[in-house]
Structures are given as C-alpha cells and as structure tokens.
C-alpha cells in the first residue's frame, strides 16, 4: 500500500511520515504540489494525504490533476487542511476529494479514514 503525504510544514510532514510508516504503509513525502505530482506519476500511490495551502501548486490543483489523469483516477484523496470553512469543504468535494479532515487532526482518525478509504476502493475495484 503506497501513501503519499503532502505538506509544506516540515513538522507536520514529519509526523505524517512517522504515522504512515508505523502503520505499515509504503510512505512517500512531498513538500509542495509540484513535488507531489512528480511522485504521483512515478509511484501511483493508492491514497494521497493532501494539504491545501502550499506555495506554487496548491492542494486543489493537485486534486484536480489526479481526477483529470486517467491513470490516477482511482486514487483515494484525503484533504488534510487548516481550512475548515464550509466553502473550502465544498470546493474540495467538487474537485473529487474522498475525505476531508481538519487540522489539528486526531492521529487515530486519520489512520481509520485511510484504512476505510483503501477498503472502499478495493471493494469497488472488485
């Protein structure tokens, strides 16, 4: 199981990396949207944990790219953002997000959501 975590905050990125690793996911990290897209194309992870506010290419653009790219279209997208307004959520789901988790987040909840999403995707694939 490959998971990509994207965040421009080193501390948060570090915590996410640890959590994924700890739960036996093959984890990839990206510090901004541009980097994320490169890794996505190279590794094609099952799930991406995506921050929204990042320099250069933001989370929305990454999500939009994923849904437009056929090879990546089945990927589970989880937004993990400090933005918590209704309009932000709406936009995220419009762009094809599967989950939306607000910062600060509960680590267990994040792991549960990732697991659920993976199962959902597998079920659909069958």
């Amino acid at each position, binding site marked *: 199981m490959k998971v990509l975590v994207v965040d421009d*905050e080193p*501390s948060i990125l570090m915590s996410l990396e640890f959590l994924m690793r700890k739960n036996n996911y093959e984890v990839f990290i990206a510090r901004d949207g541009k980097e994320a897209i490169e890794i996505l194309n190279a590794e094609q992870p099952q799930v991406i944990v995506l921050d929204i506010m*990042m320099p250069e290419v933001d989370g929305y653009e990454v999500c939009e790219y994923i849904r437009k790219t056929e090879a990546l279209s089945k990927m589970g997208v989880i937004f993990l953002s*400090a933005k918590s307004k209704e309009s932000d959520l709406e936009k995220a789901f419009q762009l094809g997000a599967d989950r939306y988790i607000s*910062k600060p987040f509960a680590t267990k909840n994040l792991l549960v959501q990732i697991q659920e999403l993976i199962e959902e995707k597998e079920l659909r694939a069958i």
Partner: protein
Amino acid sequence: MSGGLIVIISFLYLAILFGLAFWGEKRAGKQKSLVNNPYVYSLSLAVYCTAWTYFGSVGRAYSGGIDFLTIYMGPTFMMPLWYIVMRKMIRICKVQRITSLADFISSRYDKSVGLGTLVTIFCVIGILPYIALQIKALDFGIQILQADSMSGFTITTSASILSDNAFYLALVLGFFTIIYGARKADVTERHEGMVTAIAFESILKLFAFLLVGIFVCWFAFDSPKAIFSLAAEQEALSKLFVFDGSSHYLEWLGISLLAAFALVLLPRQFQVSVVENVNEQHIEKAIWLFPAYLLLINLFVIPIAFGGYLLFQNQVVDPDTFVLAIPLLFENNWIAIIAYLGGFAAATSMIIVSTIALSTMISNQIIMPTLLNRPALLARLGNDLTKALLYMRRSSILVILILAYLYYRFAGQDISLINFGLISFVAVAQFAPAVFGGMYWKNASKRGAAAGIWAGFITWMLLLVLPSLPIIKEMSLIQRLPELLAFYEGPQSNILIAFFWSMFFNVTCYIYFSFSVKQSSRERNQAEVFVDINKYARVFEQSIMWKGLAYVKDIESILAKFMGEVKAKKQLKKYAAQQGKTIQSDERADAQLVNHAESLLAGAIGSASARIMMSSVVKEEEISINEVLDILKESQQIMSMNRELQDKSDELKRLSDRLWEVNEQLRLNDHLKDEFISTVTHEMRTPITAIKAFGEILLDNKELEDDERNQFLSVIVKEAVRMSRLINQVLDIERFDSGKQKLECTSCSIQEIINEAIASLEQLINDKKIVLVKDIQQQIPPIYADKDRILQVMINLISNAIKFVEEGSGKIIISAYYIDGDIKVNVIDNGKGINEEQPELLFDKFYQAQNQNTKKPEGSGLGLAITKKIIDHHGGKIWFDKGLKQGVKISFLIPSERKYRRKGAMDASEGVVAKD
C-alpha cells in the same frame, strides 16, 4: 311766538336727545349696538353740516350764487381719496389707540408732548370761535322765532348772561357732553350714546331743511320753476345764474381743497370718522352716503335764497335767517319750529362733538403730561387716577363751553356766520402736512412737523385773525398785509390768500426741517409703523422696538391707576389669553407686554402721556441704530431662511455622505479585522496541529527509541515557541494599533544592534551556508531608540532574507551609514525576490488576509507589519527598493540621536507615542 315756548321746546328736544343717547348706550351695553352700521356712521359724519351751513348757505347763495357749494364739493370730490386716507388713518388709530387729532400728530412724531400741546392749543384757538358761532346760532334761532316780520328779524343781545337763553342751553349741552362724552376714562371706547344722538340730529336737520325747501317751493310759491322764472326777471339775481369760471375758478379749487382737508382734520370730524368708527368697512358705504346727504341738504338752498329775496324784496332781512323767516312770514309756526329745531340740531351736534374732541386733547395732551411731570402732585391724587382723569376731562368740557360762550358774548357779535367757519377751516388745514405727510413719508420728522405748524399758524394769525381785530389800526402794516400778499381779487380772496400762504410756509418749513434734522431711532420707528401700518397692523406689538426692564406688577399698578383695578386685571387677562401665555405679577414683563400696556394706557391718557408713564416704570434704554439694524437683520435672516435651509440640507447631505464613507471604512476595517483574526487563527493551527500530532504519537508509541522520542519532543517545543511568537506578534500589533505601545528609548548604537541580531541568527545563517557581508560606517552616530524593538526589526529583516535565499549560494549584505541626520540601514539578499507589483503592501498587516490565496507566503506575514510600526513610531521610514533584477533590498531610516533631540523637548519628554 313766545320765548318761553321756544325755550321749552328746545329743552324738550334736548330731553329727547338725552333719551336717545341713553338708549344707544344701553344697546351698546347689551351688545346690540345701534351704531355698528354704515348708515349711522355716514349720518354721524354729517356733523360736518353745522348751523353755519344750515343757515349760512342760504346767505351765501343769496350773495354769491352757487359759490356756497364749494365747501360741499371739496368733500364730495375727495371721497375716493378720503376712502384711502381714512382707512389707513383708522387702522393707525386703532392699532396705536389714538384718541384725537393732537394725539395722532404727537404719536407719529416721537410721541412728542410738545407737539401734542402745540396742536391742542392751535385747535382750541382755531375752533373756539367756531363753537362760539354755534352758540350764537342757538340764540339766533330763538330770537328769529320771537321776532315778527315787521321788525325785519333783527337780533339783539340780551343785557345779562343770566337772562341769556343761549347760556342755559350751553350749560345743558355741557352736561349732555359730560354724561355721554366723558363717562369712561378710556377715550378709545366709543361713545355710542353720543353717536346715536348725533346721527338722529343729522336726520333731523336734513328733514327740517328739506321740509322748509318743499314749503318754499310748493307752498310759498307754485313750483321751483316759478321761483326761478321770477328770479330770472330780477336783475340782481340774474348774475347768480351764471357760473363765472374765469374769475372764480381759483376760488372754487382752493375752497374745495380747504373743505376736503377740513373734512378730515376738524377735531369733530376726526372724532366721528376715526375715533368713533366701529368698523373700517363702514367707510365703503360712507363714500357715497355722505355725499348723497350733502346733495340733499343743499338741494333747496338756491330756491330758498331766491324765494327769500323775492318775498322780502322791500325789507332789510338778513338772508341767513330765510330758513326761519319764510315759514314765519306765512305764519306756519310748525314748520318754523321744525326749521328752528333743524338749526338747533346742527348747532348742538357740532358743539357736543367738538367739545368732546377738544376736551380729550386738553386733558390728554396738556394736563396729563404736565401732571405726570410733577410726581408730587400726582402722588396726592392717589392710586386710582381714573376719577381724576374723568374730572379733568369733564371740567375741560365745561371750560371750553364757557370760553366759547364768553367769546360769543364779547367778540362774536360782529362775525358773520359763514366767515368764521372758513377761518377755522384754514386753521385746521395747518395740520394737513404733518398728518398726511406723517402717514406717507417716513422721513417726516418731529422738528419738521412743529416748524410747519408754527409757520402755518403764524401766517394764519397774521393774515386772517389780526387784521380783523378792532385793536389793529387802520392801514397799519398788519392790516395791509393780506392786500400786499394778495395775488387775485374775489369774494373769498382773504381766505384763499391766507390758505395759500399759510400752506406755503407750512409745507416749506415741514419739508426743510424734516430733511435738515435727523430723526432719532425711536422716532423713526414710529414713522415706520405709521407709514407701513398695514404691515404692522397685526404684528404691531412684536415689531415695535423696545428695550428695557420692567416688572408685571409695576405695569399692572399703572394700568390700575388709569383704568381702575378691575379693568386693568381684565385687560391683562385678555392679553394673556390672546397671547396664549400666563402673566405672573412678579415676573419681568417682556417687550410685547410693555408695548401692549402702553397702547392700553394711550387709550386713556394719550400716547405721549402713556410713553411718559411707561418710562416711569420701565428702565428703558435708548435703542441704538445698531440695534435697529440688528432687528432688520433678524427679519432679513428670516427671509433668507429658505436659502439657509437649502445650505443646511446640503451640509447634511455632505455629512451623511461622510458618515456613509466612515461607516464603509469601519465596515471594511471590521471585515479586515475578521479576516485578520481568521488568518491568525489559521496560522496558529499549524503549530497546534504539529504539537497535537506528536503528542498523540508519543502517547500511543511507548516503545519509541530515545533518539526518535527526543526528536519528536524537540519538534513539540519548537512549535510551541513558534506559537508563542505568533501570539506575541498579534499582541504587538494590537498594542501599536491602539497606541498602548510605549517605547523605552535610550541612546544606543545601531552597530551593536546589528551585531546582536546577527549573533542570534548565526545558527540559521551557518545552516544555510549564507555569505553575510556587514558594511557599517565607522564612528556611526548613535540613535535614540527602544533598543529591543530595533533589534526585533533587524532580526525580522535578516530572518526574512535568510528565508528568501537559496541554501549554499545565499548572500546577505547589511549596510548602515549616517545620512542627513538619519541613520540608514539596508538589508539586501540575492534570493528569489518578491513577486509583487507593490511591495509596500507587504507592510500591511492585512496583506495576507486580503490576498488569502492558496499560495501560502513565508511566515505569518505579521513580522513586516510589526517592523513597519516600530520604525514609524521612532519617526523613521521603511521601504522596499523596486527595480531589482534579483533579490530583495529593504531599507529603513531612523533619526540620529542629535536630530531626535533637536525635534524638541515635547516629544522627548512624552516619549514617542503611536500616531495612528
């Protein structure tokens, strides 16, 4: 006819007159006024026709043909003009509560006591002989009736006063006048009983004259036609048929004008037409009713004159007696008695009204002001002066009548009936310039009026009175004066010449002195009210200019003195009700009340006396011209109210626009504040997220290696520090914004501060392998600043530069030098630069909030905002250099200590306080 019978009839007639007057008063008391109609008003005007005209017209027609008509034509032709003048005059008198002609003139010219006295004296001089003439007519009538045709109706004077019927008749008339003419103190209260009697007398004299006329035309002769054809045969009469315009037109014109003046200015005319007027609309009917009356009463003058001539051809009979003599010749005693009563009525009505008018003048214009100027005398009269006032008026009535009688006894025997009437006319005509001028010419002044009246009267005395007196020597200069000044020859030339010259000198003096002597402001004020009465009629009391201090109780006591306590209270109550306010006696009186009281008082004692009286309680201050101007300005302001309202509404609109703007700004600020808060809280989520995540990780993973655990713990600490820094920044911004931030300034070296900042950031610089160049001027002057704050600025700028440069190739240059009293510091990096058109926006604390896109800038963004505030508060300046191809150059200026000290002790002592 026996003398006793005639006297009894006369007294019976007077008894009827008393009865009528009593009835009239009673009706007035019951609010069913008899005199409140235009017919009674018009009839009362006919007091103009005296015994002089009743008997004398025939005499004049006998000698001069239709010349006698002039004194009736003047008033008739002038009626339309009279209407206009009279209406204004009545209005003025009602508003000002004017009681007589003398009061009118005095009131118009500064309420002058002197002028009032002058007019009164001249009136008495001018009118007294006229009254004497009427008394003569009373005696004359009785004697004619007693005489027989054989004696030629000659008249003798009885040897003693006590056996003279006229004396007793005069006394009875005096009592009548006292009872119905001087019963109340307030003269402006009309004498309805008296007017009723006068109207009746007018009817009687008209009826009697018409009766005699009809008797002459259809009983003594066959028809008027017969009289005229018989008269035409007489050579002496034929000339009377021709109206010789070529020689007399001047006389016609002159006498008509004189009569027109007299109709207004004779005291008795003023009394009935102005003072006794109930409703000014009555004038409208009077302007044709009165001329109609004059026409009727003159209808038979010529037939009677011609008839008398024809009947008494061979006898010497005075044509003045024809009215009585003709009925007597035919032994028709009833018609003779009625004719006698007609003449009696004409005489008595004139005597009654003239006496009332003159007594009012004497008491109000002469006695009262004299009394008021002698406080000791006044004090002896006690508090209620109403009685004193009435006694004064009553005794002056008696005095006038007695004087008139004496005049008749000792001087009046020789005067012809018609002549003294015209001499009186010329006398009263002297008031014409002052009265009419005063009504239409604002510049007419007190001096002008007095000078004019004096000049007119002196001329009148010289040309009409003195030459005819027996003591004047024949052919002396005074006797020849009228001849010397004569400019034409005619039957009435003496009257006309005197009229012309007296008016000439009068008007000349009037105009000259009005122009040469300036009016006082108070006088001017009265003039304004008189001339523009229509404007002031309603707002009179408000518009009058008065300034001073008075108390209600003083005013009340004055009013009580002259009107009686009950009436004074009633009047004040009425006034209060009209004004819709309460009047307390311990209050200060306002100007309106003082004016009202003065006008009430004027009704009782005349305006000049009222002015004196009021000034005794009112501490009046002279109104300066400036104050008059102020009052004018005030009214102008009212006029321009509309314009100002417009201005005000424009102003209001401007204000509301401004308010809208401010509100908008506030709303924007509010919005920005919300955004700022949301940015800040968002910014806080990042450290909290990290702290929370690692906290949970540490909790859930007890088996972690020490290294890993320590790493995670140090992240938590680092994020906590970040968090607290953010909080401090927010607090800093808030303190600067609210002005709570105080700088603790000391003298410090910028070099030290830069070194300290670099030292605290050394770790970061070394980590990123940045080349740091320091270029600080040797012996750089010190600054006077809050060292910690400037250090904060330097750390902020350097750490921003560190963030922007690439690792390994980064270069930062820090330079500082003295320039024009300031210290300039530059921080330059070779980083990726700012992708911003207006880099100065970066200093705005809301910048991030406004441009909250997903492209997250470095740091919280609050650092630069705080930096700018710190520099601003030190009186410095910070900016980005534009146009750099690469990297960022940020510079700031901060005043050197010397410059700072020079700026003044004030700033230094207070410390530098936030300005925004």
